């Protein structure tokens, strides 16, 4: 239960950040997406199942709050969480660059997949989709050193199963 509360607090903090501070820090029309960084961090700490479940929950709440077609972010974050959880076995290097590259790639994939789905529903344009991906990924790279270690440490310290005590 502690884990649920801790991760719910991460989602709430991420959404508040995105809708207040970061909403006022648009660069070239885009804002960073800290939720996808949180999804990557949780998936790296806890594996594909936890990554997908966290991605689904975070995406669903974001969709509800931001008045997007509900389910789009949930779908994309679920896939991102699962994929990152699957490849974490091969990301053994402690070098920050490797983790930065992973966060950047996940951000790019997330924005492009979201944009593609919204384009299918005629809720965005190809131009916006193409432009947003790299810009959000770059923006997220700047925030990764702050968000990623914090959320990953939290997810690792609050384990999935309670510790047995004697």
């Amino acid at each position, binding site marked *: 239960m502690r884990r649920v509360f801790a991760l719910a607090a991460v989602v*709430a903090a991420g*959404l*508040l*950040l*995105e*809708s*207040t*501070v*970061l*909403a*006022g*820090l*648009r*660069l*070239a*029309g*885009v*804002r960073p*997406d800290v*939720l996808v960084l949180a999804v990557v961090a949780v998936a790296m700490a806890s*594996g*594909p*199942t936890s990554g*997908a*479940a966290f*991605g*689904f929950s975070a*995406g*669903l709440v*974001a969709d*509800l*709050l*931001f*008045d*997007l*077609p*509900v*389910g*789009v*972010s*949930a*779908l994309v974050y*679920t896939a991102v969480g*699962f994929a990152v959880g*699957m*490849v*974490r*076995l*091969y990301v053994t290097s402690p070098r920050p660059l490797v983790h930065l590259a992973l966060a950047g790639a996940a951000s790019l994939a997330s*924005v492009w997949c*979201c*944009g593609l789905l*919204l384009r299918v*529903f005629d*809720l*965005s*344009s190809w*131009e*916006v989709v193409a432009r*947003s991906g790299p810009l959000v990924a770059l923006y997220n790279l700047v925030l990764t050193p702050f968000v990623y270690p914090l959320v990953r440490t939290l997810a690792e310290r609050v384990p999935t199963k309670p510790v047995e005590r004697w």
Partner: protein
Amino acid sequence: MYERPRRRQLAVLALLLAASIVVITVDFRQRQGGPVDRLQRVAIAVFGPLQQGASAVVRPIGNLVGGVAEIGSLRDENRRLQSEVARLQGQERTYQDVLSENERLRGTLGMAKRCGCRTVGAKVVASSGSNFQLSVTVDVGARQGVRRDMAVVDADGLVGRVTQATADYATVLLITDPTSGVAGTLARGKAPGILKGGGEQLLQFQPLRAGTEVRLGDAVVTQGYQGGVFPAGLPVGVVERVDPAGAASLVPRVAVRPYAALGALDVVAVVLDRPSPPPRERGS
């Protein structure tokens, strides 16, 4: 080159993906009044106060850094922004802030008076965190008479329309959102057209008639019609660029800069009156 998924992991993934697709389908089939719509209201009602509190704390920081970040893309407004940043640097939310807010409120009310509409004043408490949707949350809702599809203005012009209203908060879709469309008309010549958002700072004005003459600096205002959302005559923006009609298009491509300060909204007014709906046909 990845960890081999176990059956349970794949089952969880399939379940979550299926749940997402079901939610998307339900949302599209029952956009208004459905279970997803109700959940959305709950989410806004829960997060609204949190956003309001967080916004009050971080707004001065956000305004300051946001102002600095946008200087590159707003060269023509460089001087004005720098003085604004300098002003913000020295201020917290004190007497001066209250005075300027009062001024903006008066301006907003003045805008509402221009269309002779009843309005309710509101403060912007949060912006959308999505990169694919441009909206803001305001601190008025159904309790103050705010309903879906009401127009929202600031002291300078049209801001957008209400897309979701809970008891105390409402979501406003900005006119620059890619899904936004506003019936507009050129103040000079009364040529009708559609103003569409493109997700950027400028709107696209598409004249409805071929041969429409559009000049730089022309003002664009809303066009009212029965059953529409926006009252007639609300200022929307000014023509900033005109690409003349050619082989690709019979009408000119017109870029309009909104009058409203959509990047730094603070005080707005929701227009409670809407153009009356079209009369029902007898027998329908």
